């Protein structure tokens, strides 16, 4: 046993960088997939729509923890490959982000009236251009508050990566609490760090929502 000192704070700082890295990677890789899911869900072709709906429904019914363990322990064993821990964790969070963000964005796109697509079509621009220039900007505004809300959920969710021994903020806290036997101090600091990141984002999300509804 040792007492709580600057070394713990230093390890929190390092671990926090991994938390941030995880969030950024999940967003960078998950967002394009989410867009893919969202467009699949509004596709003209029933099989595509159905497939996307089923996949999203199933993925949303799996706890993040099980997803993590599945990708981290299950997949490498099954495929017979070695997967670096960071990669496994990033894959799990990418899937998580793609699924939830995909549903949010689909909601945003569907909130735009059919007539907007038709107005685009009457200008003679292609389907892709209609989406890019007419639908997406409006859908973005509608989906933004919920997307920021999801970002908070994702940041909180990265704490679960501790289960596979990935050293992010929560894992660093666990290790530090075990070494110093001062759980009160350690977990208060960790909770405060998460709160300091998430609370401003929650406020932002709420403000965006008020602005969105105010403009209607």
């Amino acid at each position: 046993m040792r007492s709580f000192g600057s070394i713990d704070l230093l390890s929190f700082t390092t671990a926090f960088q991994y938390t941030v890295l995880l969030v950024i990677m999940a967003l960078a890789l998950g967002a394009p997939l989410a867009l893919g899911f969202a467009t699949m869900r509004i596709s003209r072709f029933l099989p595509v729509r159905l497939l996307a709906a089923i996949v999203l429904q199933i993925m949303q019914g799996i706890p993040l923890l099980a997803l993590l363990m599945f990708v981290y322990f299950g997949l490498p064993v099954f495929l017979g490959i070695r997967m670096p821990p960071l990669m496994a964790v990033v894959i799990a969070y990418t899937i998580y982000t793609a699924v939830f963000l995909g549903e949010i964005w689909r909601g945003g796109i569907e909130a735009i009236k059919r007539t907007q697509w038709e107005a685009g079509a009457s200008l003679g621009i292609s389907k892709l251009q209609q989406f890019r220039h007419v639908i997406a900007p409006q859908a973005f505004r509608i989906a933004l508050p919920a997307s920021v809300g999801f970002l908070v959920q994702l940041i909180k969710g990265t704490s679960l990566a501790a289960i596979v021994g990935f050293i992010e903020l929560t894992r660093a806290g666990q290790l530090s609490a075990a070494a110093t036997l001062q759980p009160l101090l350690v977990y208060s600091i960790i909770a405060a760090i998460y709160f300091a990141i998430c609370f401003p984002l929650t406020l932002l999300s709420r403000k965006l929502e008020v602005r969105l509804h105010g403009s209607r």
Partner: protein
Amino acid sequence: MNQFNFRPLFRYEDAFIEGILTTLKLAFQAGAAGLILGLVCALLLGRGNRAINLIIRSYIELIRNTPPVIQIFIIFFVFPTIGVRLPPFEASVVALTLYFGAFVTEIVRSGLASIPRSQLEAGHCLGITNLQVFLHVVMLPALRNIYPSLTSQFILLLLGTSVASFISTEELFHTAAFVDSRTFRSFEVYALISAIYVSLVIAFRLFFFAFGKLAFRWPTAR
């Protein structure tokens, strides 16, 4: 490429069933207690008492902006230092109740806010008692409005119970980790419990859908 082999898991059938039951017990207990907590907090928020509002708002923001894992850790590891020692299952129920309660408070508050004042006044005009106005004119329509959010929040709680395994509560996820460590069939174990969770979620969705259709049959003006 490995072969699928679910056979080694069959021996642990009882453990899995035990795990499912504990998961459901966690979800139901935390769900029921959290619902009551949320209702009480939402009603207290409406009273307009500054101090109470501040306390409830801080509670909501603290819970909603920190990870549930940390909350469970604090209740399980920190509370004993101030003399409250809880076994894993009870600690999990308390943590999940506080977590669920914070979200329910927000949902119920928005539901109450969705009832226009004029509807309240219309209720009073009928000459029924204040309690009857509250129950039939405010609470029931509000409940109907928030029913979808409440039920999906419960589904999230059901999935969230897996976090309780962090403090060795023997629920479904913990069982999976245990069986995995015995059989080394990681792929099959986590595929199996994922399937179980998905089935539970689908079963609850169907039940909530059917119940909602039955319970909220009266027509609305909208």
